[in-house]
C-alpha cells in the first residue's frame, strides 16, 4: 500500500505508464474482482457518468467487456458501432469528434483500425479516453489484464515480482498491438520479454524499439520462459505473403505440448483471444487447465476495465 501517482485523464498506451501507475490500476482491479463474484455485481462509483463505447472494428469480446465494466460501476453505457466501410465513405474522425462532444460523455472507449487515431481524438475531446486498441499500435487494457493475470501467478512461478520473469510473446508481433502493449508494460515492471516468430512477422528493429530479445525459432524462444503468450495469427496475412500457409506456420511456430517442454516447469500459457486452434496454438495446450490461464484473462479483463474507468473518472474526466 502506498500513495499512487495517477493523474492521467486518458489511457492511450502502456508506453506512458510508470510502474506506480500500473500498480494503481492492478490494485484497484484486484479489489474490484470481488464485486464480480457477489450476488449484486454492482458498485455505485460511476453513477450518473456516461460512457460511450465507440468501436470502428468489430470486437464483441472487448466491447462487451467494457460495456459490462461500465455497468458494474453504475455508469450509463452507450455502444456506438461504426462499420469501417461507412467511415471511408462518410463521416471523418473529425466529424465524429464533434458528434461525441455534443453528447457530453465523461468517458469514451475507442477501438479504431488506424494507429494513432485515439491520440488525435484525445487532443480535441473534453472527455476521458480509453484506447481499446488502435491499429497495430497499443491495446493497454489487454496488457493490464495480462499483467494482473501474470501477477496472480507469480507464486506458482516461484517469483517474488516481475524482475526475474521471462515472458515469451510468440507469433505475429508485427501486426499486434497486444504484443507492443504487453512488451512495454512488462519492460516497465522489469521482466525479460522475448518476441518469438518468423522474421517477417516481427516489428522492425524490435530489440531497439521495445527492449525485447528476438528469437526466430520457437524452441529457442521458449527455453526457460515462465509465461508463454501466443498471439492470434490474422489469417489474411497469408494472402499477402508474410507466411506461406497455415500448415507451414503451425509446423514451425504452433504452440504444442512437446514444444512447451523446454519452458520453465510451471510455465503458464496465455492468449488474448479469440483463439485459432491448430494455427498458433494446439487445443491440447489451450485446454490444458494446468497451464492455460486464458479464461482467467477474460475474468481479469472485466476487473481491469472497471479499475481503469475508476481511475480515469477520479481524475475528472468530462467536466
Amino acid at each position, binding site marked *: 500500500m502506498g500513495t499512487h501517482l495517477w493523474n492521467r485523464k486518458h489511457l492511450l498506451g502502456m*508506453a506512458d505508464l510508470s510502474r506506480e501507475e500500473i500498480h494503481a490500476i492492478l490494485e484497484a482491479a484486484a479489489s474490484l474482482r470481488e464485486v464480480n463474484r457477489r450476488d449484486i455485481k454492482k458498485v455505485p462509483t460511476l453513477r450518473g457518468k456516461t460512457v460511450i463505447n465507440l468501436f470502428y472494428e468489430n470486437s464483441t469480446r472487448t466491447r462487451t467487456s467494457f460495456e459490462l465494466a461500465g455497468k458494474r460501476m453504475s455508469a450509463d453505457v452507450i455502444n456506438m458501432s461504426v462499420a469501417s466501410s461507412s467511415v471511408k465513405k462518410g463521416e*471523418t*474522425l*473529425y466529424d465524429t469528434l464533434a458528434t461525441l462532444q455534443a453528447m457530453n460523455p465523461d468517458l469514451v472507449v475507442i477501438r*479504431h483500425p*488506424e*494507429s*494513432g*487515431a485515439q*491520440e*488525435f481524438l484525445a487532443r480535441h475531446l473534453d472527455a476521458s479516453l480509453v484506447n481499446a486498441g*488502435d*491499429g*497495430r*499500435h*497499443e491495446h493497454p487494457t489487454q496488457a493490464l489484464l495480462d499483467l494482473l493475470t501474470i501477477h496472480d501467478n507469480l507464486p506458482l512461478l516461484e517469483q517474488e515480482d516481475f524482475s526475474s520473469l521471462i515472458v515469451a510473446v510468440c507469433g505475429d508481433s508485427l501486426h499486434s*498491438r497486444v504484443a*507492443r502493449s504487453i512488451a512495454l508494460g512488462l519492460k516497465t515492471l522489469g521482466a525479460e520479454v522475448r518476441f518469438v516468430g518468423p522474421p517477417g512477422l516481427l*516489428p*522492425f*528493429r*524490435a530489440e*531497439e*524499439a*521495445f527492449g525485447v530479445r528476438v528469437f526466430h525459432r520457437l524452441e529457442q524462444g521458449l527455453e526457460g520462459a515462465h509465461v508463454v503468450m501466443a498471439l492470434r495469427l490474422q489469417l489474411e496475412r497469408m494472402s499477402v505473403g508474410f507466411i506461406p500457409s497455415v500448415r507451414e506456420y503451425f509446423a514451425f511456430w504452433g504452440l504444442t505440448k512437446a514444444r512447451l517442454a523446454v519452458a520453465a516447469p510451471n510455465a503458464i500459457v496465455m492468449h488474448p483471444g479469440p483463439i485459432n486452434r491448430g494455427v498458433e496454438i494446439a487445443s491440447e495446450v489451450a485446454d490444458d487447465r494446468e497451464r492455460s490461464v486464458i479464461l482467467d484473462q477474460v475474468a481479469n479483463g472485466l476487473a481491469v476495465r472497471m479499475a481503469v474507468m475508476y481511475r480515469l473518472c477520479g481524475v475528472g474526466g468530462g467536466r
Partner: protein
Amino acid sequence: MSGFLWIRGARVVDPANGLDATADLLVGDGIIREVGRCDAPLGCPVLDADGLVLAPGLVDMHVHLREPGFEYKETIAGGTRAAAAGGVTTVAAMPNTRPVNDDPSVTGYILQKARSEGWVNVAPIGAVTRGLEGRELTEMGLQIRAGCVAFSDDGRPVADSGLMRRALEYASTFGALIIQHAEDPALAGHGCMHEGVISSRLGLPGLPSEAESVMVDRDLRLVALTGGRYHVAHISTGQAVEAVGRARAMGLSVSCEVAPHHFALTDEAVLGYDTDAKMSPPLRGHEERHALLEGLARGIITVIATDHAPHDPDSKRVEFCQASNGVVGLETLLPVSLELVRDGVMGLSACLAAMTVAPARLLGLNRGALTPGMPADLLLFDLDAPWVVDAARLHGTSRNTCFHGRRVRGRVKKTFVAGRLVHDDDG
C-alpha cells in the same frame, strides 16, 4: 529616373560569379545593369542595404502550385505569393494537377495564369507519362515548345523499367531533364512513415530506405545505358546519395536535390502522429539525415528544393495513414537552409548556389545569378535576424508546415522579380 534602383552597401553574394563582397547593384528597367562600385544615374531611387545580404532570387525547382484542379489547396496566385515571401523568385511547378500537366494546353494555361496573377516566375514541369499513369510518354517536344523546363511524374515514380529507359532516351533528343520521384512501389507497400524504431513503436507501416535506393540504382543503370539527363527529386537516403555520387564520378549527367525538412528533421517529428510531419519520401532516421548533410558538404547534392506541397486542413486532420503527403516549405526554405551554414556543413555561397544557380542551370533558366544583363530577380535578407516560424502567419493558402514553432535565423527583407518589389518585410 523611373525604372531604376540603386541598391547600396549590401554584402553581395553571387555564387555564379564567385562574388562575396560589399558592393552596390544597379537595376534598370528590370535588368541588372551593374554590380560593384556603381555610379547611379541622377535622381535614381536609392535603397540603403547596409547590413543585409543581397543575393540572386532563389530558384525552387520543386513546388506544387495545385492549380489547375486543387485550388482549395493552393493557387498560382497564393503559391507564388508564398514564394515571394520566402525570397523565391522562380518556382518550377510540378505537373500533378487536375488535369495533369501532360499537354501543351495545360502548360499554356499555367503560364498565362502566372503572367496575370503570379507574383514570381513560374516554370512548368511536364509529366513524363500521360495522366501520370506510367504507360504512355507525353509529347515532350511540344511541351518544351509550350514552356516546360523538365519532366517528372512526381508524386509517383516512373516504375516501369522499360518505360523509364524510353523516357530517358526520348528526353535526351531535346536535352530535357527527367526528374524522378524514386520509390519502388512494391517495397514501399502501404508504408506511411520511415521504417525504423519509431515506426515500430508507433505501429505505423514503415517505408524502408531501400524503396528509394533500389529505384535510384536501377535508374542510374538506365542513365548509363541511354545517356539521358537524370535528377533525383527530394533525395532522402544515404544509399541513394552514394549512388548518385558514384554516377557523377563516372561522368553521367546525374544530379539530385534535397528538401530542407529531410536534412533538418528526422522521423522523431512523427511522434504524436503529427500529420504535418507526413510526406513522401518520409522523414528518415538520424543516420540518413547525417548522410544527407554529408552529401551536401561533399557537393554530391547540388540543389536544395522545397517539395512545397500545400494541403487543406481536411486532408491533414485525419488518421495518420489517411493523411495526404506533403508540407509547405517556400517560406522556411531560406532560414532552415541557413542552418547548414551556421552548423558548418557548407559556406554561405555554396548554400545559396544550391538554391540559385545550380537549379537554374539544371532547368536551363537564365536566372539565379547577378550577371549584368540578366533579369533583376533579387533577394535581400538579414542573415542573423531571429524569428519563430508561425503557421498562422504564412502567406500561402495552406499552412501545413512541419516547422511550426521552430526558432530560426535569417529573414527575407525584400524580394524583387525583374526589378519589381514583390515582397517587403517592412511594408
